């Protein structure tokens, strides 16, 4: 099968995630969309690994997963902390860093 289809699918998933990150305001959903973006990338890496017949791309994909896991731990931790402090679940309202 042509590698092009895999890449198209990967780009599609990535764009869905990106759109979600840019449009949604709930931190939880943004986190989910981030996962989508990462996994879109993973798909492309895996496809390239298949194409070249080496394991490099797969190793990269595994590393991305580990990074994603770490990121989710921190992100979920932050969200739990926000719930605990009864902060609004809206990233647009949390703009204290405005210069």
């Amino acid at each position, binding site marked *: 099968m042509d590698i092009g289809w895999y890449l198209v699918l990967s780009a599609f998933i990535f764009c869905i995630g*990106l759109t979600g990150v*840019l449009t949604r305001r709930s931190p939880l959903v*943004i986190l989910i969309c981030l996962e989508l973006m990462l996994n879109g990338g993973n798909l492309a890496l895996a496809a390239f690994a298949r194409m070249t017949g080496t394991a490099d791309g797969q190793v990269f994909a595994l590393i991305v997963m580990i990074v994603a896991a770490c990121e989710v731990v921190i992100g979920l931790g932050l969200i739990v902390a926000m719930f605990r402090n009864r902060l609004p679940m809206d*990233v*647009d309202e*949390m703009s204290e*860093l*405005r*210069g």
Partner: protein
Amino acid sequence: MSATTYGWLVLAFPLAGSIVIALGWRSLPGRTAGLIGSAAIGLAFVNAVAALIQLQGESADHRALTSSLWDYAVTSGVDVKLGILVDPLAVFMALVVSGVSFLIHVYSVAYMDSDRGYRRYFSYLNFFVFSMLLLVLAGNLVILIVGWAFVGFASYALISFWYRRRTATYAGIKAFVINVVGDVALVIAAILIQRETGALDFVGVFKRAPEAFTQNEWLIVAICLLILVGAFAKSAQLPLHTWLPDAMEGPTPVSALIHAATMVTAGVYLIARTHPLFELAPTAADISAAIGVLTFLFAASVALVVTDLKRIIAYSTISQIGYMIVGVSIAAYSAGLFHLMTHAFFKALMFMAAGSVIAAMGGNQDIDRMSGLRRALPVTFAGFLVAALALGAFPGFSGYFSKDEILAFAAERGGGYLWIYIAGTVGAFVTAMYAFRMLFRVFGGPASPEARELEQGHLHHGEPVNPMTGEPEDTDVGYPGPEHHIAERERSMAVPMVLLAVLSVIGGVIQIPGVTHVIENFLEPTFADSPFVDLDVSGGTEALVLIVGAWTSLIGIGVAWVLWLERPGITVDLARRLPRLHTFLQHKWYFDELYDFAIVRPLRALGRACSTGFERVVIQGMVGSTAAAVRVGNSLVRVAQTGLLRYYALLLLVGVGGLALYFLVVSS
């Protein structure tokens, strides 16, 4: 031990004394600090005597010994060692400095007794003597300048010793600033000497100077004039004399120390030390002599009208130093230094007696308030009388021989120097007048209330006030205040006075012109290369000068007797008839006003212009515009910082997308 070892010990004791008192002041009860300080100077004197004995053991050609401890500064072409030069001149100065300083220390032990800064005082005092000894024993110009600057600092510290007295701190600053003028000139002179001769140690400089300079070349004249600026600043000669009368703000023994033993004699010593240079530059030597003449006439005239007792003595010092400067400038070295020695004796004595009088007056220094103290203070009166006789060159007293020795030399050289002799005689006449003006005004006449109380055995109790401003004295700073010690009732103060009185009387005997030549013979090895060393004053000239000097002194004293004791109305009448001359003299020839107008005010105006103009417009403008530029820049950058997470994500996307597009375009 060799003479140089004793030379080092002379330096070591006062320095050690100063450090011990400065560091151990907490654990020094009562008068211990004074005793330590006196002992340190006493040991320095003993070692100076030992150096003298050692030096006399050498043959006459080998009486200039150098010794160095270590390298002080060695760089390309400059080789300076921490070294001393022990020769007859240095030993002579060390003897006078340490001897008279010792007596002044002993006097101070009781005089400063009730002062709260007692230990600080003795630490400074020892440091002062150490600096002066370093100056006279220095083996090269650099060490001499180090000692020179130390003396300047020590004088500053001691003049403003009562630091809560505003006038005292001003006087200290004034002395320091004027001394720095001299320091700078001396440093420039040393640099020029190093450049031309390639040496900085005295022996090397004097050996190479005749080859490096032609006779009276402009450069050597310039160097000598720079040395003179340094000497005049320290020795309070015109036009750098204004600090000395103000230096009277310090405690009276400090005045004695500055005037008699240390500090002001440094300039005379410097000219004597660098005499080979001055012999190459006769023009500079003549300028120096002329300024000396002007100075002693000026100071003597001012001393006639000033009414502050200590300031009269200060002007008399300026005047007497003028005689010494004339002496060493016209190559009458031994005579100039002889006068330095006798002056040290009678001036120290005069200050001690004045300190006693001021104590009896409860801190008041105005001679208009004093009279008839002779019965209340008999020992002080006797001391002051001896000092005044010596200062007024009464026949037989030390000042008579030493001053006339200088004048006889001037007369013998003839030509233009004859004018120096004439001016010197006029100066001597005025000197006798003002010396006895002090004596008659203070001790003669009816007894003042203070004197009457003293005669009944107790001290007049007055509120201490600052003699300059009339402000009440802040006795908390340690000003002796009501607990003054009167010299003749304290043995440790009376003994130095008696010793100095004896020296003032017989000090002249060792060098009676034409009869004895102790000092001249002793100093001869130092001045052996001088072309005038063989100039012997003929017996006829000497006899003439001595006779004229005796009559001048007697007439001066007689005039003073008439003016201030017999008919005191005459002076008041004179002051009224010649108001211009009187105010001119009372304002000390307007020197302070001139400096205020020519230097102080322009500088202050410049400072004000800088603070209002330059500072406010240029400096503040630069700082302000930098701040404004930063503010404008950050207001532009701040727009991007919205704080919205999704906005940042979009910016990230745009950036990464832009980069990706760029590489796509470049690579295709």
